[in-house]
């Protein structure tokens, strides 16, 4: 049987393909010919930069109150947060205008919205006087404990 001479050009071109595609191994099989080239680089960059990275066991839940923007409001000093789980109502009764709007000046103790839980409507009052600079919930929106509602500055 005729012994095939090594096709160096083929090996070289596979090696080039390895580089080009950032591979560590190519196995190539044609009729009667099989070539495998490999390069196992010491991979120094696999480690996490420091300490333990908490493994993400799953995509973060789609629960309310987790977007980056909302998280920013959570740390804002003027933010009024929900003291309970329930549904936000922005006006005293359906059809009536909302308690407050952006730009309104409010005084301490003024009702900003209602939160309904267990069929009870709980008024959420301004903890201090100031200007309403953001309304973070809309009428009928479910809210969880600690969720940012209104910003008064």
């Amino acid at each position, binding site marked *: 049987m005729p012994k095939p001479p090594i096709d160096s050009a083929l090996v070289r071109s596979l090696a080039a393909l390895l580089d080009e595609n950032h591979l560590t191994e190519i196995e190539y099989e044609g009729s009667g010919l099989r070539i495998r080239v490999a390069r196992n680089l010491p991979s120094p960059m696999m480690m996490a930069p420091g300490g333990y990275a908490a493994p993400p066991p799953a995509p973060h839940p789609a629960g*309310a109150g987790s977007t980056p923007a909302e998280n920013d409001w959570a740390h804002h000093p003027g933010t009024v947060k929900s003291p309970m789980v329930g549904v936000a109502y922005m006006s005293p009764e359906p059809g009536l205008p909302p308690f407050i709007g952006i730009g309104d000046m409010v005084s301490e103790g003024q009702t900003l919205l209602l939160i309904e839980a267990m069929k009870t409507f709980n008024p959420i009052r301004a903890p201090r006087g100031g200007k309403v600079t953001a309304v973070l919930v809309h009428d009928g929106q479910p809210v969880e404990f600690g969720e940012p509602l209104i910003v008064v500055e």
Partner: protein
Amino acid sequence: MFDKILIANRGEIALRIHRACREMGIKTVAVHSTADHDAMHVRLADESVCIGPPPARDSYLNKAAIIAAATITNADAIHPGYGFLSENADFAQMVEEHGICFIGPTAEHIRMMGDKITAKHAAHEAGLPCVPGSDGAVETEAQAQELAHSMGYPVLIKATAGGGGKGMKHAHTPDQLIDAFRTARSEAKAAFGNSEVYMEKYLLAPRHIEIQILADNHGAVVHLGERDCSLQRRHQKVLEEAPSPALNADARERIGRVACAAIRKLGYRNAGTLEFLYENGEFYFIEMNTRLQVEHPVTEAICGIDIVREQIRIAAGAPLGYEQSDVRFSGHAIECRINAEDPQTFAPSPGRIGGFHTPGGLGVRVDSGLYSGYQVPPHYDSMIAKLIVHGGSRNECLMRLRRALGEFVIEGVKTTIPLHNWLVNEADFINGDYDIHWLQKMVDRSAG
């Protein structure tokens, strides 16, 4: 079947319930306190709702918040897990009144079994053997003698108004009885201003044996065998096994039959556990747990039935679909409760989990919400993981348990793994020769 279940609990049992739901194609809502925002089950659930600040009374015990969370997420059922609101009849009733299914028994059954006196009465009526007692005050020495004779020695004489061991005396033989009766009465008089005493059979070294029950809404009742939970420290179970090394096939069959008959008589539905003390071949009912139990996995291991799945199916109205004769038992299972505690002093050890590596391989199950980097909050129960091991025989199970404990790595907090490592090499435990006082005595001895 339900579309969405709200899990009104935390920790490993919340994850356990989430897994059962996921495997049934049911969506999950995790409710959590602000301390549990990063908990495993919260991260895995389809939806999550923060229901309050860390203290349990404001979050996991906050009925209104949990029901509001179920309402805003349109959950059609609530699984209460164990602890927290799981045996709160008012909560079960409120849930049902809000048109949400409570995954458990009726509020009436929870209420009945939640009160020691009505529970014992109901159990007695249903044919369960109870600890014999005077059923009221014992007035005279003659009465005491007659009663002690009929129930058998040793007996315990207790002040009706009592507590804290005051006015409590035991008599092991008839000639100790009169002395014990008199002393108890005078101590009771001195301590509580009331000399009235009653009498109960005194169990010296009983085992804690409990029977797992499943009952559907269509009259089917099965038991899933017993669990031996005698290894306790300060009345907290530490390690459970099934079957009990103390029961023979005859005793097992007998108590299983009695338990099923009682459940049928009570009209109870869903999962439940009848707890007994067992001494000298006799069972004595102590209480019924109308909920899932921490140690349910040992039963799952020996009978191959997913108890949480069955709870959900039953609550949704599905029939059990099998009879007692279809329930088959194989091998032996042991559960170790692993707490974030100092294994010597049992002081809680909350903190940040460093390395976390669970044992794997054949016959090993780990139920835990831990992960590397997780912060164990200081606000709740210290149980952080359960290791459940199954083997063809008790000895195989023990060998496997030893090797699995040896592979378990939890860094960053102290755990009770060393306690279990010690326990599985103790001769009495290996021989199955222990009662409900054994572990406490051993721990006290090593501390003293």
